[in-house]
């Protein structure tokens, strides 16, 4: 005999945090049951394996039903299908650790600019969200749903979010050790966010945050992913392998807030997703710094004077100055080409970071050098493009700082 049908539906939706995570991680029901058994949940209520299996399947179904709503959080707030009444929260509140709560509250408060009631309970591991029923549930489950693995995202970063890429997910899954199910969810999340914000005006991060009810950090990460996907930055080359997703996310943040149209005018369509074309044009003007011999020498002497005696690698800096300067300025001058925009990061590594690294510059050396390199240009009398220079070097400088590690 076999159980043909087995459902449990409460007027109040019961969600188990642990199972939710297992579901998100793409575990099968049987795997999840195994994990839970090892976790000792069985002892809690004299449960048997059958009970656990039935409960896990039930939870999985609930999550699947939620998933539709999680895809369009706009529906979540006033959805009628699930109910989490407030009384339960109180009950749960009384049991949760204060520290965990405060931590969580900070995390979410900052991100939402508004307040939700976050409850975090352990044990038993249940999690509910809301100031008012649904919200709590919404936020925390959303937060989890839209969370992603850095290793996974590193693989797809800068790739076109298309069907073609989706087909490669099984390879990525094998490579990153993230289950295929989880990979698909994450990839679909990227795509969904991309599709929605593509059509929206206004600041990218803000849009993502508000539209998907995500935390600030997560919204920024998504913005980075969207931005990379849109500009198709090359991140897969071997030379870039040492960079983590967080490195790129930081750089993306810099680019978004300084080089996009939105950095100047915040009411333009696609403002944060595309680079400011005018600015890229203006970057050509910087070429004067390397084409004009006098200017180049003057720049070099200014930098060298400032650096002398302050670093162990001064000789290397002096010798390499012209090469490094040419490298940076050439990158700037070429950015009008889409192809070269894509290679932005690889160029930075090849033209600047690698030479420095082979000369064994420390991070402090790098910081010192770039600071003086940027500042000295202001003193050059004949150099008129101070604004563009600052806008360019500001970003490049912080990107290189972030990227200059092993």
């Amino acid at each position, binding site marked *: 005999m076999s159980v*043909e*049908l087995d459902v*449990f539906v409460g007027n109040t939706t019961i969600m188990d945090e642990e199972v939710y995570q297992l579901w998100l991680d793409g575990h099968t029901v049987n795997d999840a049951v195994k994990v839970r058994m090892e976790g000792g949940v069985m002892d809690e209520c004299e449960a048997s394996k059958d009970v656990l299996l039935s409960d896990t399947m039930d939870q999985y179904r609930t999550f699947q039903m939620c998933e539709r709503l999680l895809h369009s959080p706009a529906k979540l707030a006033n959805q009628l299908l699930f109910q989490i009444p*407030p*009384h339960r929260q109180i009950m749960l509140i009384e049991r949760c650790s204060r520290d965990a709560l405060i931590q969580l509250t900070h995390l979410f408060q900052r991100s939402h600019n508004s307040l939700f*009631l976050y409850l975090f309970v352990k044990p038993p591991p249940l999690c509910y969200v809301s100031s008012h029923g649904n919200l709590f549930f919404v936020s925390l489950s959303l937060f989890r749903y839209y969370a992603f693995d850095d290793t996974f995202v590193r693989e797809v970063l800068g790739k076109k979010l298309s069907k073609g890429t989706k087909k490669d997910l099984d390879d990525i899954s094998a490579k990153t050790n993230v289950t295929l199910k989880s990979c698909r969810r994450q990839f679909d999340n990227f795509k969904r966010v991309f599709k929605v914000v593509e059509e929206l005006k206004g600041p990218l991060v803000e849009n993502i945050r508000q539209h998907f009810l995500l935390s600030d950090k997560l919204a920024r990460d998504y913005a980075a992913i969207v931005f990379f996907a849109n500009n198709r930055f090359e991140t897969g080359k071997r030379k870039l392998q040492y960079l983590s997703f967080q490195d790129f996310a930081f750089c993306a943040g810099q680019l978004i807030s300084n080089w996009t149209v939105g950095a100047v005018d915040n009411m333009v369509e696609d403002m944060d997703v595309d680079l400011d074309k005018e600015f890229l044009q203006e970057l050509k003007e910087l070429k004067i710094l390397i084409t004009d011999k006098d200017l180049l020498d003057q720049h070099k002497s200014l930098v060298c004077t400032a650096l002398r005696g302050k670093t162990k690698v001064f000789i290397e800096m002096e010798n390499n100055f012209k090469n490094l300067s040419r490298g940076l300025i050439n990158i700037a001058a070429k950015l009008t080409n889409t192809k070269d925009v894509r290679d932005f990061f690889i160029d930075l590594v090849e033209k600047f970071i690698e030479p420095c690294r082979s000369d064994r510059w420390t991070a402090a050396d790098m910081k010192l050098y770039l600071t003086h390199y940027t500042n000295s240009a202001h003193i050059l009398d004949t150099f008129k493009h101070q604004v563009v220079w600052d806008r360019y070097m500001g970003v490049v400088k912080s990107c290189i700082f972030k990227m200059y590690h092993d």
Partner: protein
Amino acid sequence: MPGKLKAKIVAGRHLPVMDRASDLTDAFVEVKFGNTTFKTDVCPKSLNPQWNSEWFKFEVDDEDLQDEPLQITVLDHDTYSANDAIGKVYIDIDPLLYSEAASVISGWFPIYDTIHGIRGEINVIVKVELFNDLNRFRQSSCGVKFFCTTCIPQCYRATLVHGFVEELVVNEDPEYQWIDRIRTPRASNEARQRLISLMSGELQRKIGLKVLEMGGNAVVGYLQCFDLEGESGLVVRAIGTACTLDKLSSGSAPNTNTHMHPNTAPASNACNSPSKDGKEPVFVEDLPSSSGPPTPFRALPTSSSPPPFSPSKPCSRQSSSSDTDLSLTPKTEEPHSVRCRPGIFLCPSSPILSTDTLSLPGSGSVGCGRGSNPRATTSAPLSSIQSDSALLRKSVSFTEDLLLAASGMGSGGSAGKEAGPLRTLLRQQTQTALEQRGASSSGLLLNAREFPFFTLTSFPPGFLLHVGGVVSARSVKLLDRIHNPDEPETRDAWWEEIRQEIKSHARALGCHAVVGYSESTSICEEVCILSASGTAAILNPRYMREGCLDIGCTDHRFEEPSPPNCGFCHIPYDELNMPFPAQLTYCYHCRRQKVPDVLFTTIDLPSEAAVAGKGCLIQARLCRLKKKAQGEANATAISNLLPFMEYELHTQLMNKLKLRSMNALFGLHIQISVGENMLLGLASATGVYLTALPAPGGIQIAGKTPGDLSSEHISSIQKRINDTIAVNKELYQINPPELAEEGVGSPIPEPRHRSRLFRSHSESSDELSELDLSHGKKDAFVLEIDDTDAVEDIHSLLIDAPPPTGFYSCNTENMPGISNWTSGVQMFTSVRVLRLSNANLTNQGLNKIFTDLCENLLKSFYFKLRSMIPCCLCHLNFTVAVPEEELIQVTVTAVAMTYDKEQTQEKTAEKPVNKGSLEAEEQLQFPLELCADSSSSNIQTASKISDTVSLFTPAAKLCQNQLLIVRSAGVGESTNISPRAASVDYGSFADRCSTWLELLRLKAHTIRRGSVKTSRRTQSLAHSVSSLERCSPLQEGRSRSLRSSRSFGGSSVTVVKMTPLSFLSGTRIIKYLGIINMFFIRETTSLREEGGVSGFLHSFIAEVFAMVRAHVAALGGNAVVSYSMKECVFMENPNKNQAQCLINVSGDAVICISETDQESSASTANTGQTGGGGTDGAT
């Protein structure tokens, strides 16, 4: 008399994409009532359309208002082809028809499609203007209130309880009409939903008419059921208790300490207001607001109508006639009356024999057959008629009935004994009634008199004098097509029969009333088992009218004031002339009157009953295989099996009761379901130790013949049983007050006697059943191991695992031994279907499977609800069905409620504080009441809520881990969001937001109140709310990117609690908004894609809950009490990737408020209403 129904379609949201090309929808709405249809404009290219329609007005008869639902259909406009339906909403406008209930229905309703489920939501406002109808001959019964609750509703008092009302309507099932072959499944489903909605409306109206005729104004304990008879049609039937209810003014403080009986004060006088029609109340309860001592009964002038039911000679069983009756009855007659009596039923359409069943002489199924023939002779005419009619009959059905009677050992044999006096009475009554009222209208009133039945399960203290025991009757019928839907005589007659049977059983127990009465059916193909059961009882004669008083005069026992906490246990029958063999002892409480050793009832534990320890759920489960058969042969086979099943179930119950060291069962419900090749029996009850009753004896094991099984084996089993009993005593804290055996009354029977008692039931039945012949004769031992079966039985006895620590369970309204509920409530429904793969199953194997199924379900619940510990599963209602051969379906609906483990409340200082905050939170749950007229708030509040709203956390010190959130309703932080952000999306948001703000305000208020004394460091966060205006297209266009986020914050989906109980812990019901009675069909042709059968049913049940909640919220309510899932019929065809499910749910929509914060809410409600221009500042 016409009424005017007005409906307005405001907006839609989350609509599905109907046009693939644009990913949008061109939606419009059709509003239909009766034969009138209105349409809104098409709202092009939007998934969140704003129709904002005019008021559609329907001028209709109030008869139609009661019968018809308002149908709202959302469609997608298509220029070239037919418009596609997105889905429908049926709104039952009945709640708007009585003055005290809802005044408007307004809110978001899920748009439901029988194929796709919920597809978006629609905002609708409905109002009714009703003119008073004084027409005597009207067909409508507007104004009669209906309650599913089986006690007197909390904010009412019963001035009169008139009695039993019943009605049924039949129709053809659209699913089985010829047209079904050509129409789509969707059309068919919708036809069915509509028809059933219509039929329930009609049924309710007809019952209402009966109530009006009786002079009542309400129906309590309204129980409506569907019989899906397949080819032969669709029956909707209902029973209830007609009452005259008075609304308690909200000012009068109700009894707060008991949830169950707000009207606990004893009745002081029986006020009877005989109406000119001679409508007589059956009994009268008067509740003075001051609970003074009862004043003596005051005889009132009444009309000369006969007593409401024939109570005049219940004591006549002591008379010689009765004795004679008994002695005349040959011994052999006994089995005849117990066993399935082949009753004869002739189809009324038969041209020759269109006689009423009742009038068939000696029709065995009726306890009080006509004429004065002694019982013994009845068999002769019976058989002769049978043979006679064999020639003419169109169909013959076999009636089986069996009494599972009182104190667990009644036997059906007693039924016949009362026949004489009863018969006379009945006739007398009928005659008087006829004389008085004329034949035409007698039917109505007769019913109430004829059946002194009450569907109520709990009564005010003192109401119930004595309880006799459970009476039940079953009858197997062969279904036949209903030929004339307007004259459902067949079905009426069937039930009439059963009720007569019940009545005669009650009489046999010396009782004049049946309480906790219910009826049910089980249908398989063309066989139908009708069942009815209740508890025979004697009600307080003080509540009775003059005519009834002779009960008291003739029986000395009624003169004595019986002690409240044991009186109901005292036997109502005469001990010298017991209807069945029973062991009586003197009451362990008062030592004055006799009590049985066990008591079985279908009612709830009376609140005043003295109980030791806690109660627990006791279930008896049984499967019986049956040969597949057709028609009569099948009916006969089933009839033959039934008595054995009842007997077995009873034995199991008895054993399990003893095993738990308890002596009484409450809320007993026995369900027998029929399938093609098996019968399933499930008996559930709540066991309890009544201190008035003697302590139960143990269970003893014995081998029949030494050598069969080693004595060691037996003694090991004996030891296990004894251990279990000891463990259970501990578990349920059964420590009855040690009564010294002072020699008062009879001592506790010796083991010898005890076991005899225990077996006594079998003695009455062993003449007819060979089954237990072996140990039935043996007095000395309780359980005898004579073969492997018996071993199995004992093992299964021990298999019931006790609930894990922290859990208790019961199937009644109140859990014996627990009363300090906290506010945690989780209602749930669980369905499990088991497929039996093994074709060669034995009865034992099946029993094991079935028992495991039930036990595993319970285990699952405990696990799922572990976060609620300590908690109790209340009102566990199991329903079994055999949907197909080899399938067993169990459906459970119950509620888990948390309670305070500390029996004494003031244990620690922080306890009350926590409680306070808890209740403050609770306050959140009656938001809609505040916006009583939400239609106006829709427009006005938007401008009203420009004030600041704030909310505080109670001092961190108090609730160490508690953080309260303050959120400015999502209306953009006006501080950091640029002006464009302050704009608002669609208008409905204003509505939601207002509710939300009221909530906040309310909550702020409460918390402030609560924290005055206690809080020191109050973190307060205040956010100003920018003034909201109704959407202007200009703003809408600009704020596209932010719109969605705007609506997040405004989320104020009302939290609607549901419970199968009549109360919600920690709250008081302040208003009943009307009955919820909804019927849904869901069908799919893509079962796999929807997650298989489990996925399909899971989402369907969740959708049903959502729709119930939405309807309640639209009525302005925040809870459903007495919720039940009446029907859950699931059918699948995995090969075709198809499944279909029907669900019928019902309950009472209510507004409830936290018990402790009543005044505060009243004041906040006021400020809420006036718009409260003031700012709720920080404390």
